[in-house]
């Protein structure tokens, strides 16, 4: 009577067996390539503040590399002098910035080797960076950065930015990160009142912005670099400069 139950034929073939692991057909469990996709930034840098004035551009950024909420590396320069006509500032992932910096520096070396009298121009670098950033984002493997390119081309000052999505635009006032919310209103108001800023005025404005950013950005640092490209003086990167901190109001808070 029990024979038919004990010796019953199996219900299915090539299917899961009770008590055993079943590997679904068609899906390979090992990854084909070990590249990371759409990563999260690790060591990051915060805002960049940039302003175009009558005869040149100013770009400033602090020198902190944050590890999440830890102020880990307090000497991370992120304003780069590319050549006499171009300065480049970057925010976001510091490792990605270092990689792109090496590639740009190699480009300059190759250009020097060619020795044909042609030098890289700010708009060319800006365009090239835009293409790289957009292509990487289209492959889901972005450079997690926000670049600000400044320089003088054909006698006119130029200021442009590219972000990790490949969004690119050029303007007289460019600030990335928290600077967009805090520094841009200040700069816009000042430029509206005085459209023809001199180098000294522009620099003072940017210094004021760095001070306000130190008060209100929780991932900022009171030491920063400031780079200028002027028609007459070429590209100069200065730093580290200390923020003028005014904490007198501490006495007034109950």
């Amino acid at each position, binding site marked *: 009577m029990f024979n038919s139950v004990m010796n019953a034929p199996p219900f299915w073939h090539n299917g899961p067996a009770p008590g055993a692991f079943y590997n679904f057909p068609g899906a390979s469990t090992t990854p084909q390539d070990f590249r990371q996709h759409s990563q999260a930034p690790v060591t990051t840098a915060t805002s960049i503040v940039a302003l175009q004035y009558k005869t040149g551009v100013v770009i400033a950024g602090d020198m902190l590399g944050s590890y999440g909420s830890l102020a880990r590396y307090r000497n991370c320069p992120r304003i780069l002098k590319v050549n006499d006509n171009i300065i480049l500032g970057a925010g976001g992932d510091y490792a990605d910035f270092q990689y792109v910096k090496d590639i740009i520096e190699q480009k300059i070396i190759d250009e020097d080797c060619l020795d044909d009298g042609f030098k890289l121009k700010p708009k060319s670098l800006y365009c090239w960076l835009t293409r790289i950033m957009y292509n990487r984002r289209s492959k889901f493997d972005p450079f997690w950065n926000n670049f600000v390119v400044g320089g003088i081309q054909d006698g006119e000052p130029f200021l442009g930015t590219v972000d990790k999505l490949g969004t690119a635009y050029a303007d007289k006032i460019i600030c990335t990160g928290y600077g967009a*919310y*805090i520094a841009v209103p200040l700069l816009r108001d000042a430029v509206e009142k005085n459209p023809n800023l001199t180098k000294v005025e522009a620099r003072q404005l940017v210094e004021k912005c760095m*001070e*306000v950013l130190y008060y209100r950005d929780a991932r900022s640092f009171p030491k920063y670099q400031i780079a200028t490209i002027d028609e007459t003086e070429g590209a100069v990167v200065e730093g580290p400069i200390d923020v003028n901190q005014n904490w007198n109001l501490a006495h007034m808070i109950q």
Partner: protein
Amino acid sequence: MSVLCPETPAPGFSFANCKRNALLESKGFPVPKATKTGTTIVGIIFKDGVILGADTRATEDTTVSDKNCEKIHYLAPNMYCCGAGTAADTEQTTQMISSQLELHRLFTNRVARVATANQMLKQYLFRYQGHIGAALVLGGVDSTGPHLYSIYPHGSTDKLPYTTMGSGSLAAMAVFESRWNPDLEEEEGVKLVRDAIAAGIFNDLGSGSNVDICIIRKGSVDYRRTFDEANKKGVRQSSYRYPKGTTAVLSSKTIDVEVVDVTVHPIEPEHMDTA
């Protein structure tokens, strides 16, 4: 004939409708978006008192629902409160506390203190655990001097010499951090507040239209509604009305209404059925 006595409702937030709302949302009827105020609101303490400022745009998600709303609410003759967040919450909360303050004033026979209003507001908002979306800037002058508080929806408060709230708060705070000092005269203070609100209006999409300012000094209040009309509506260049005779009349036909019959039906009023 009996009249039902309404039961006093249980204190605290009633979550009875949440299940119903979730069901409706799944059927395709989401909760209508509350009118928020987007907003830039600010307050500063100057030499003789407090200056409050606010923009006048109310938003419903990405539409402007009110181009000229009032965000500076009356609390007491010596106290005003700016409100950001959900418009209904700020309006009702300030009105409620205003009436409580009036009762308090009558009971104690003294001018109400700003700290009292602060306590009342924070205790009320904390009880509702942040569900009442009211972010307030409370300012006033009482017997102990000028005071300025910022009150957050969850019930925490800060007592500061200058403060900003709302989506435009970063733009406004940038202006304060670069230009505030403790020895401001009234005129400079008003200009600073106007500039801070203007920074919010022009750089934040949730804020816009005009600047309202309220200056509170010991013994006097200056409520300047539309202190600065920062965004004037464009004036039409010319009239688009067509002059009479533009359209030529080809022919006209008049149909008279003939009165055929006139009858009157009187209608007796029926007695109300109160059974």
